[in-house]
C-alpha cells in the first residue's frame, strides 16, 4: 500500500471527521422527526429520511438530530415530518417530496422560517408521558 503524505493524512482526517460529526455533541439546533409508520414508509418516508441524512451529511452538521417515529394519525398526508427548532414549538410538514425536504431544510431548519406552503400546523397532540 502506498505510504501517506501529510496531504493524504489531512484528506483522511477531513473524510473521517465528516462521518463522525454527529458524535461531537453540544446543543441541538433542531430535531427532525420522520413519521415512519407503515403508511409513512409506503408513501416514501424512507426516501425522506435518506434525503434528510444526505442534507445533514453534505453540510457536515452535528447539531441536527434525525429521529423516526410511528404513524402520526394523518395517514392520507404522509410522508410527514415534525421539525422542532431549539426553544420553539414543533411544526408538522405533510405530503413531502425530496425537493420539498431540501427547501424545508434550507429555509426552516437552517434559516428558522417556517415554509407555510407545506406546513400542516404548529404544535403536537398531547400525550400522557
Amino acid at each position, binding site marked *: 500500500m502506498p*505510504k501517506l503524505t*501529510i496531504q493524504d493524512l489531512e484528506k483522511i482526517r477531513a473524510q*473521517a471527521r465528516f462521518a*463522525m*460529526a*454527529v458524535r461531537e455533541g453540544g446543543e441541538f439546533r433542531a430535531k427532525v422527526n420522520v413519521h415512519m409508520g407503515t403508511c409513512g414508509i409506503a408513501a416514501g418516508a424512507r426516501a425522506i429520511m435518506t434525503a434528510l441524512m444526505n442534507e445533514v451529511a453534505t453540510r457536515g452538521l452535528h447539531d441536527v438530530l434525525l429521529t*423516526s417515529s410511528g404513524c402520526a394519525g394523518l395517514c392520507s398526508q404522509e410522508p410527514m415530518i415534525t421539525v422542532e427548532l431549539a426553544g420553539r414549538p414543533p411544526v408538522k410538514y405533510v405530503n413531502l417530496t425530496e425537493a420539498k425536504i431540501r427547501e424545508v431544510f434550507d429555509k426552516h431548519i437552517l434559516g428558522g422560517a417556517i415554509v407555510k406552503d407545506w406546513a400542516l400546523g404548529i404544535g403536537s397532540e398531547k400525550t400522557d408521558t
Partner: protein
Amino acid sequence: MTEQPRTKTYRLHLMVCAGTGCVSNHSFELKTALEAEIRKHGLEDEVSVVPTGCNGFCERGPILVVQPGDIFYQQLAVKDVPHLVEEHFLKGRPVVKHMYTPPEGKTPVPVLSDIPFFKKQVLIALRNRGLIDPEKIDEAIARDGYKAQAKALTEMTPEKIIAEITLSGLRGRGGAGFPTGLKWQLVRNAVSSNGGQKYIVCNGDEGDPGAFMDRSILEADPHAVIEGMVIGAKAVGATAGFVYVRNEYPLAVERLGTALRQARDYGLLGRDILGTGFDFDIQVKRGAGAFVCGEETALLGSIEGRLGEPRPRPPYPAQSGLWGKPTCINNVETWANVPAIIHRGAKWYAGIGTPTSKGTKVFSLVGKINNTGLVEVPMGISLREIIYDIGGGIPGGKAFKAVQTGGPSGGCIPKDKIDLPIDYESLSAAGSMMGSGGMVIMDEDTCMVDIARYFLTFTHDESCGKCTPCREGTKAMLDILTRITAGQGVPEDIVLLEQLAQAIKDSALCGLGKTAPNPVLTTLRYFRDEYEAHIRQKKCPAHVCRPLNTYTIDLRLCLDKGRGCDVCRRNCASEAITGRKNEAHAILPAQCIKCGICFDVCAFGAVKVD
C-alpha cells in the same frame, strides 16, 4: 483502506463501551444483539454501532452512549435490546428506565455531560475515550490523531520538541514524576557507541492492585501512545521502540497490535514516515505479569530476554539502557499526553494544574466508593472532589476513613487531609506518592493494620529476591504484622517495624523495595492508635481481625426479634452456642473459635461483636 466507503454517514452512533470492565459484563454480546435488532428493523443504514474504549463509569457497565444527544444508558442487558431499539432508535423516544440516577437523586439524568461523575473531569490522556473505535485508525485521525506527529516531523527540530515538552511541565506519570523534557534531553545528549542506536520504551507493566489506567488508555486510544512515541523518537534520535505490556491485558495487546499494523500500513510508522525520511518502528513485548518488571531496569532486562530483575542505578537508562544503549523510557499515560502538548502547545498544557505539577492525572477509583471507575482530573483537585463529587461518596452511608494512593509503594492518606490538593509534592509530603494512579478508598469498616498487612503480603510475594533488604526485610515486617493482627503483638513491635522500614528504605536495590514499607509507615503515622489497640488491648477497632473479636448474643434481641431462631447454633462449627429453638441463645467463650459465622448469619442483629 477501510471496509466501508469513507463518506458513509449514519444519523445515530451507538457508542458501546468495549473496555475490559464492560466486556466482562457482556458488552460484546450487547453489541451483537444491537446490530441484529437494528437489521431487523431495517435501520442498518441509519444507525451504526461503534465499540469504544473504557467510558470510565465502570460501576455502571455495560454502558451505551447515543450520539448525537449524549444519552447515557447503563447496566444494559441483551434482553433490554429489542425494547430499546424499537423505542429510541426507531421511534425516537429515549428509554428512561435505563438511564442513570445519582445515589442521592430521584430523577434520572439522561445526558452524560450532566452526570456528576463526568462533570469535573478534564480529558487529555483520555481525550478520545468513548468517541472512537480504537480499532479504526481513521477515527483516531479524525480526532486530530497523528497531527502532532506530522508537525513534529516536518516543522520542529528535536531541540524545539524537547523545549516544548520541558515548557509544558509534563512529569512522568508512572509514579516518580521525573520531568519528561529533562529525561528526553538526557537521552538526546547521551552518546551511543556502535552507530548511534537509541531506543524508546513505553512502560505498560501496570501491576498495582486496583490500577487500570494504562490498560484503559491502550484499549481506548492506542494511537495516542504510538504517536507520542514517534514524537519522542524524533526528539531523542531513536529509530526503534518497544511497548512492554502485560500479557494479562489481552484486549490491550490486541488493540495495540491492530493499531501498529494500521499505522504501518499508512506509513505513519516504519521507514520514511510521511515521506519525511524519518525511520521509526515499534515492537510489542508481552510481560508475564511480574510486578518487579514495572521497575525500569527490570523491564529493560526482560525485553532483552534476561531475568526481570532490577540492577543498580546509575547508570540510568538514559545513558545505558536496552543493550547498553541510551534509552528513553516513559509510562503509557506520559506518552499519551505528548501528542496533545505538541498539538495544542506547551502553554495551554502548563495552564492546567499546580505550580509544580502540570496537566491532568488519570486515576482508577476502587474500593469503598459508589462510582468505581476511571477518571481524569486536573492536578490540584482535592481528594474530596474526587471521592465525593466524582466518586459519589461511600456506599451505605459509611464514613470515609482513608485513601491509598500509589499502590503498594504509596501510602494511605487519612480523612483529615481530604481537602489536600493533589499533586506530586503534596502527596509525598503526606507520606504517600502520586504513583501510577490507583486510588483505593477505605471506609470505617477497614482495619488499617490489616490493610498494611495486605500490601506487605503483595510486595513480599512480588519481591524478585535479588536484594536482601527487600527479600528478607519485607518478610520480617510481614511476620510482625501477621502476629499483630492475630492478637499476638508485643509493644516492641511498633519500634521494630519502624526500624525495619527505615533499613529497607535505605538499602533496597530498586524503587519497589525502597517504597515497600510505605503503607506500614503511613498507617503508623496516621493510625498508630489502631496498632496500639491491637497490641495492648488486643482489640481490632474495625472488627476486621477476627481473632481479636469477642462475640456475644444479646438475649433480648435474640428472643424478642429472632424468637430464638436457632440459626446461629446450627451454623456454629465449634458447638460453642447453647440454647434451643424458641429460647435465648448464648456463646460459650471457651469454645468459641471466633470465626464470626454466627455474626454473619444472624438476621436480627442479635450477635454482637466487640
